[in-house]
């Protein structure tokens, strides 16, 4: 079982779109896949037409495997399950800080799902806090969407510094360009510069596309309703690239 986190300190960079479509691509490729919506806003869950569970339970997430399993919902697609977000997730930090081994709780509970899934994708909230550190400890790959702008570049560097200062393995960070606009000169320049500076960038680039924006109306992964469009297929190529990277890391 592998765990991928779709993560960025910055919001609105395409984390959820990536999580949802990569999870879909993974299930279609035959993997038992679980998408965990860690963001209390519940956008991933929304895209899969799953409402947040009504009861606002507290600490089950990090402690009780059975209760965690009970909250998992099948999606409209075979082999793709969702653990929907819950408003209580906003209190993850408080919950975690009161626990011992507070930075490894997520890793522990996820590893108990080893027999159930081939791939777990974490759709993370935009933050850098105790939950993020749990994510860094748990994930085999931290996939970072980067909009090719100066500001995003800065946030990406902040993340690298954080990893450096806190002794996390930088090699698990795999950035990719997200919401890139081919006609935008600044985007073009930033991509060229950053690819040179950080060869670790994934080759697949997710472009800005109205089709992707319409996911909120369709309420399904864009790969499910517009899979033939070039911009959309980039998610599938990104998934294949991820598979190769994970296989090499083995």
């Amino acid at each position, binding site marked *: 079982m592998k765990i991928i986190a779709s993560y960025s300190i910055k919001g609105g960079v395409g984390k959820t779109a990536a999580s949802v479509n990569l999870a879909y691509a993974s299930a279609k490729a035959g993997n*038992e896949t*679980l998408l965990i919506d860690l963001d209390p806003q519940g956008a991933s869950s929304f895209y*899969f*037409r*799953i*409402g947040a569970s009504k009861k606002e339970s507290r600490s089950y997430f990090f402690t009780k495997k059975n209760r965690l*399993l*009970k*909250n*998992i*919902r*099948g*999606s*409209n697609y*075979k082999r793709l*399950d969702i653990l929907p977000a819950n408003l209580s997730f906003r209190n993850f930090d408080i919950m975690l800080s009161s626990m011992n081994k507070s930075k490894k709780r997520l890793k522990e509970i996820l590893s108990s799902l080893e*027999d*159930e*899934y081939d791939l777990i994708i974490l759709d993370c909230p935009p933050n850098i806090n105790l939950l993020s550190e749990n994510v860094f400890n748990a994930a085999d790959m931290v996939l970072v969407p980067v909009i090719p702008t100066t500001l995003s570049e800065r946030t990406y560097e902040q993340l690298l510094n954080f990893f450096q200062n806190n002794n996390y393995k930088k090699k698990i960070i795999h950035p990719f360009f997200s919401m890139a606009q081919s006609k935008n000169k600044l985007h073009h320049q930033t991509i060229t510069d950053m690819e040179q500076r950080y060869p670790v960038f994934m080759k697949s680039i997710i472009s800005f596309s109205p089709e992707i924006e319409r996911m909120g109306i369709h*309420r399904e992964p864009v790969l499910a309703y517009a899979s033939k469009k070039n911009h959309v297929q980039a998610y599938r190529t990104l998934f294949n690239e991820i598979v190769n990277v994970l296989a090499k890391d083995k």
Partner: protein
Amino acid sequence: MKTSQINQAHYLLPDNLTKKLFLDTLKSSFSLKQVENTTENFSVLDNFEWRLYQKKLMAIRHKDQSISLWNESDLFDDELALKIGDITSQSKFWWDFPDSPAKKTLKPILNLRALHPVYNGVLKIEEFNLQNENGKTLVFCQLISICDTERPRIPIMRQIRISSVTGYIKEYNLADKLLLGLNAFEPTLPPLDSLLGAIGVSPQIYTVKPELNIPANMPARAAVSSIISTMIEKQRLTEHGIIKDIDTEFLHHYRVAIRMVRAAIAQLKEVFPPQDITVLKQRFGNLAKETNYLRDIDVFILDKARYMNFLPESMRNDLLPMFDDFEKNRQTEAKRISRWIGSRVYRKEIEELQLLFSNGYSAVETAWSEKPTIELAVNKIQKTYKKIYKAALKINNSTPDDEIHDIRIDCKKLRYLLYFFGSEFKKKKLKIVLNHLKSLQDKLGIFNDLTVQGEFLKNYLIQLEHKPKKDIMLIASLGGLISTLYTMQIQERDKCIKELAVFSNDDNQQLFSNTFIVSSRGLPKAHKRAKK
């Protein structure tokens, strides 16, 4: 989730349930989203022996000629099908298929047999997701309908499968309840039997080996008639496949069946009047002889890859002209045999022969004709075994090949006797005897094949002499092949001699005399009473 209990139910829909009522009932509680709807002409495939069916597998050929293969538990689940694409309607043997898991599965099952259609019809697959008002799928649902090609709108079978979605078990139970309310019913048979039954296909398992249960006290002639009659039936079942040239196994089994008939006539001749024996031998002999050449070429062509590998790589292609010749000859010969078996003359002959035995052969009584079968069986089995072990004792390194071949023929006779009368003896001991015999026959068989193949090649070489244009490389590679076969033949001969020594040792002699006996214990009750 891998280990979650995905609930699944299969039902057959009653004939009188209309599609409208079916859909309306589901719509009363769910929104229906159709995600798949395909209709196509298709064929269910199997080989003549129903080996796929026996392995609980089903293969279908789609309209585009591709093949899907399922375990019976996954029937029609597109995602779980093993698929074979990139093939034509002519691709019917495992070696015609591109490398794939499906090919790997089929290879040992099909062996030399062709996959051929056992049913043609129209297949309609509809998949509905049962959803809530938000468009969230709560239950997966698949409806399979099969119709006759001639009446493609009227289903002769409708099967529904519902599967639960993780976290929505209540909704699954509701769908289940709705279906049961429509009198959907669980098939009583396993999925494959249920499907084949519904479309009116009944598998006839075929094996050329007879399973005879001849009572020990049955009069010998009646028993031998029944053996011969069974074998002629088996022979006749292969005729259709030879006429259509479906695969080479039909002819092979045709010949095996005739060989057993001829063995029964020759070995158990005492039950028939001597003048009849000559005629019967000749009539069945003619049937066998007619097919000799086609079988010889079949064997050669089937072994093409093996022969090529006997030669150094650089010479392998030089053999190809010979195989081209064989292929051409095969085509002509197979057509001739197909015409012959389809002819009125053949049918008249085989029907006459069949009639002679189907109700017991009628002729004047002979010394053996009315004796209990067991006495005939024991006498013949013991005599044949004695003949083999006496000959085996004399074998040494200078024994001519012909004598080894004679032993091989006697072993075959013994094997057939055991097939015919095996049920009259103790199962456990018989199994040991058969295992010994099989091991010996395998070695003798290889030895014989090498000799026959060497001869066949020599004859081909002689024919080449008359050709105006001499292909030197072909002649050279044939020479290489013949000498390789000869070296192998010598090695096999040694193995045969060693195996024969085992077969004729004291232990085995003891085993034979203990196993094949006429004891009052070995006889059924009725016979014991008669003896008293």
